[in-house]
């Protein structure tokens, strides 16, 4: 790559532009808007997993002090957009009919929201909710994935279109595995995991007029939410406003609009007041999405000297009985290694559960656990170092799409990662290393995720004092989007970061997609770039028009600011921004620019890659695992905000520790109810579980993917971490745990 690029785009670590607001409590989250005359809604969930509501006795609740309404299918106002089966308009993300809250008496999952109690205070609503008596007609439910795996189906998308990522896939010979010299086969299970962001799902719904709705909503897409609710309530889009200025973590569970949101909107309409509704922690397990429990079987055929012959990968994931949730569990298997023969089978099993939703590293993180564990197992079987085994099957082009990579710098990751973790200390034979009583092991796992990009638009305004203010509807669920965009603008213009503001999280701002799929920097970044360049072009035209000869042939790249002084080709143009605007009788310039994916997407396979290395200690008698060090290596293109990017990697690795060692939403299938559903029982890693995490970025731009050169890294930060730890546990103990999480009981 062009070295000059680095000189110019040398992005420095920057503290979060909104960090102070967040740590001082000044940042306002969706449950923190206190609107005049606001009421509070509390949801009651069903106590059975399948059946119908026989009766709802709400008399006592209605009589309780300051209760405004008890709303259920019996008395809820009609939602105009509720459609007959199969025709719900609002969902681009999953096939099927999203749950229509308070629509009828049917119950299809346990803790399904069935009643909302609305009162003048949260406490009063909560108390009244305990007074509602509900009777059910129970039917036989089905919640157990493994017990019913044989009933799994090919998703409709795969049935309809053989080219769909969910369709059956065969490359090369179907039976190649059977005749491979080395044959390996195993099953892997990933439990249901719940996003559990710090901030609970919350919404404040406000009908500003009969046909004008504003929601302060915890979502990952303000435009998505605007569109969905406009359709649901049969309103023109401009009558619906979604505000999500701050989001306290989401990890994917804000990528879908959930029943509680509609419940709050119904309640607000019904009591004619703004209504705030916050889910409880337990409801975060049942009323929003989760990472589906997934069973996988993988077969790997290889030669004795470590060349892959075939991979067959089969997965079965949970979905609800009303929506078909799918994810790209098998994608990595198709493209990561140079195996001539690959078959994948993706199936889903409709159960009496709420619909799952993408959770960080969606699909790939699940698939990588099986694939990267299996790669380690095969390497062990043929007595090869697992990195050498992977390098022996390195592919210089995408064997799935049959296209060249836009960029792929995984060799750099292998080299740097090995050095940093101390791979030379690793022994091929498991159980050979000790530190006192503890067994020591090293493992690694790779990850990949598409370098996704969507269209995005940014509005930018520059005033004579050099203040640059931008607007875009994108949300920031925590990665530091505002910070990254400010850095891109600063590097493009030379304006200091303190003079740049990026407003986001509001559907009235220019269009952007969802914050999901690691696509934000790749999508909104180019729009920021385009807007900054457009501003520069305006200035060049203005300057040239006023007789500044030097500007007549200048390009946006030639112009930079030194504070408010304009520089051309690195030298002072002896002209300030203020003077130039004054000469033109204006006090600011502005522009709106869209940037969207180009035709390179049809020519190249664009992916971000990661490689995680783990060193673990395992106690041979108590089965406790301590992760002692993690090294994360990422080929994510240009790193525009090194500090927040490193935080992303650290957060992803921490999530990966949870996936590997602690997180498990356990369900008692007799009742179809979760039993680990608070933060005491559902274990996310705590500080003591998280060691030093060392982050390395290749930091080479991918200018084919987008003009910023970024490939995205939110997902690859977690993809491959769990197998790295599981592989390290095997290296330490010789025990292979194929069902996560690896808790002490599985190792003794």
């Amino acid at each position, binding site marked *: 790559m062009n070295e000059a690029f680095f000189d110019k785009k040398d992005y420095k670590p920057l503290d979060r532009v909104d960090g102070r607001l967040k740590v001082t409590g000044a940042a306002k989250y969706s449950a923190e808007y206190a609107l005049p005359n606001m009421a509070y809604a509390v949801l009651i969930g069903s106590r059975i997993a399948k059946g119908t509501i026989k009766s709802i006795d709400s008399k006592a609740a209605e009589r309780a002090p300051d209760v405004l309404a008890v709303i259920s299918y019996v008395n809820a106002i009609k939602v105009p957009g509720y459609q007959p089966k199969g025709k719900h308009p609002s969902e681009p993300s999953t096939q099927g009919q999203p749950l229509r809250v308070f629509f009828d008496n049917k119950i299809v999952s346990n803790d399904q929201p069935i009643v909302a109690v609305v009162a003048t205070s949260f406490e009063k609503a909560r108390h009244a909710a305990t007074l509602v008596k509900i009777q059910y007609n129970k039917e036989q439910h089905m919640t157990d994935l493994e017990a019913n795996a044989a009933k799994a189906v090919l998703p409709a998308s795969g049935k309809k279109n053989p080219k769909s990522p969910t369709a059956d896939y065969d490359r090369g010979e179907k039976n190649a595995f059977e005749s491979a010299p080395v044959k390996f086969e195993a099953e892997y299970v990933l439990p249901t995991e719940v996003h559990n962001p710090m901030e609970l799902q919350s919404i404040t719904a406000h009908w500003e007029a009969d046909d004008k709705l504003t929601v302060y909503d915890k979502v990952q897409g303000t435009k998505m939410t605007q569109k969905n609710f406009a359709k649901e309530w049969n309103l023109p889009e401009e009558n619906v406003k979604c505000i999500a200025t701050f989001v306290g973590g989401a990890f994917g569970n804000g990528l879908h609009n959930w029943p509680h949101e509609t419940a709050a909107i119904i309640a607000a309409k019904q009591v004619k007041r703004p209504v705030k509704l916050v889910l409880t922690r337990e409801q975060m397990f049942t009323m929003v999405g989760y990472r589906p429990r997934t069973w996988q079987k993988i077969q790997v055929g290889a030669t004795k000297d470590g060349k892959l012959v075939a991979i067959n990968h089969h997965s079965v994931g949970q979905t609800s009985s009303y929506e078909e949730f799918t994810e790209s569990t098998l994608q990595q298997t198709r493209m990561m290694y140079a195996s001539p023969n690959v078959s994948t089978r993706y199936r889903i099993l409709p159960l009496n559960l709420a619909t799952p939703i993408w959770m960080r590293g969606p699909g790939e993180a699940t698939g990588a656990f099986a694939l990267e564990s299996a790669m380690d197992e095969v390497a062990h079987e043929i007595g090869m170092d697992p990195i050498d085994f992977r390098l022996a099957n390195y592919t210089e082009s995408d064997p799935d799409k049959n296209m060249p990579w836009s960029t792929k710098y995984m060799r750099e990751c292998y080299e740097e990662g090995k050095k940093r973790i101390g791979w030379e200390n690793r022994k091929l034979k498991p159980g050979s290393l000790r530190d006192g009583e503890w067994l020591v092991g090293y493992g690694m796992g790779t990850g990949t995720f598409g370098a996704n990009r969507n269209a995005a638009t940014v509005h930018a305004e520059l005033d004579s004092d050099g203040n640059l203010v931008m607007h875009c509807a994108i949300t920031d669920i925590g990665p530091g989007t505002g910070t990254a965009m400010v850095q891109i603008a600063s590097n493009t213009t030379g304006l200091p970061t303190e003079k740049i503001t990026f407003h986001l999280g509001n559907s009235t701002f220019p269009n952007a997609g969802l914050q999901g799929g690691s696509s934000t920097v790749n999508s909104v970044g180019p729009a920021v770039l385009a807007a900054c360049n457009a501003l520069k072009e305006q200035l060049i035209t203005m300057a040239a028009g006023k007789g500044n000869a030097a500007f007549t042939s200048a390009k946006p790249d030639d112009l930079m600011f030194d504070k408010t002084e304009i520089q051309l080709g690195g030298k002072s143009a002896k002209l300030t921004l203020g003077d130039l605007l004054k000469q033109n009788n204006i006090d600011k310039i502005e522009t709106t620019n869209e940037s969207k994916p180009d035709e390179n997407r049809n020519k190249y396979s664009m992916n971000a890659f990661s490689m995680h290395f783990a060193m673990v200690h395992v*106690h041979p008698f108590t089965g406790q695992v301590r992760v002692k060090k993690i090294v994360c290596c990422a080929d994510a293109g240009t790193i525009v905000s090194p500090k927040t990017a490193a935080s992303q990697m650290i957060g992803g690795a921490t999530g990966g520790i949870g996936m590997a060692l602690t997180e498990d939403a356990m369900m008692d299938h007799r009742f179809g109810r979760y039993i680990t559903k608070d933060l005491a029982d559902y*274990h996310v890693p705590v500080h003591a*579980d998280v060691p030093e995490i060392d982050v390395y970025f290749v930091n080479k731009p991918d200018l084919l993917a987008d003009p910023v050169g970024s490939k995205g890294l939110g997902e690859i930060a977690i993809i491959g971490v769990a197998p790295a730890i599981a592989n390290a546990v095997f290296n330490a103990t010789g025990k292979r745990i194929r069902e996560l999480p690896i808790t*002490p009981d599985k190792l003794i």
Partner: protein
Amino acid sequence: MIQFQYERVTTAKAAISGLANNSNARFIAGGTNLVDLMKRNVTAPTKLVDINMVPLKDIQQQNGKTSIGALALNSAVADNKLIIEKHPLLSQALNAGASAQIRNMATVGGNMMQRTRCPYFYDTALPCNKREPGSGCGALQGLNRMHAIFGTSDKCIAVHPSDMCIALVALDASVVVAGPKGERRIPFEEFHRLPGNQPEKDNTLQNNEMIISVEIPDNAFNKNAHYMKVRDRASYAFALVSVAAALHMDGKVIKEARLAMGGVAHKPWRLKEAEQALAGKPATEETFRQAAKIAMQGAKAFKYNAFKLKLGPNVIVEALKNAAGLV
């Protein structure tokens, strides 16, 4: 809002009379357990008697025993110099419990009275004899990974979740309680009870009694004491199995031993036979294995907690090795 009476008292006497004539009145101390249970609708007291102002926070040494006030905070006890020096086992056990924030609120009395963490007990949509006598035990045929292997009944297989209490039972503590008729002392081992036919009763404290203090007799176990807790994450999780081990050494020989287990029974589980087996023996791994074997006699596992039959003795051995300075 659920209406309840709230009364703040400044003396133990007022506290006790605050409970009079109301079987649904409860003391509230740190609130770290009671408030959670109220929020989950597991319990709904009609009156709360706030005892935080009652002056029972002192930790004193006199007449051959250490006395700890019932309202001393878990963190204050754990960090107390006297406790660290004389009863390090207790300090270690306290620090192995909950989180720093919770320990800063939780009291000694509240810790003893905390209720089981059995998930069926916490979810009012599920059966639980402890919460609702006669409704059945959800855990018996359910997900009983966290449950007891000793002293269970077919009515309840829950465990007592405290770490502090495991150290206290090992140290032969006694509990000073006061009621309308005055004070009495309960040996720690008799404070908590087994579920039997009345799983709703966690302990032998009477409805109108208050815990005043805990007393630990002077002992020679402070040189060789170790609390080991194995859990699902490195901190902030309840024990799968924990062991309080303390040895009074005479050179390389064990003069006297104390051993108790957590995460295995409805009460802190003292292992007296194993203690006897240790006395007079050399402090070796072999000795510890033998004692662990004895300790596990009578253990009975359920569908998902069979691992405790293996983890239990391993943790006993490891705790003893650490206490003896063998690792």
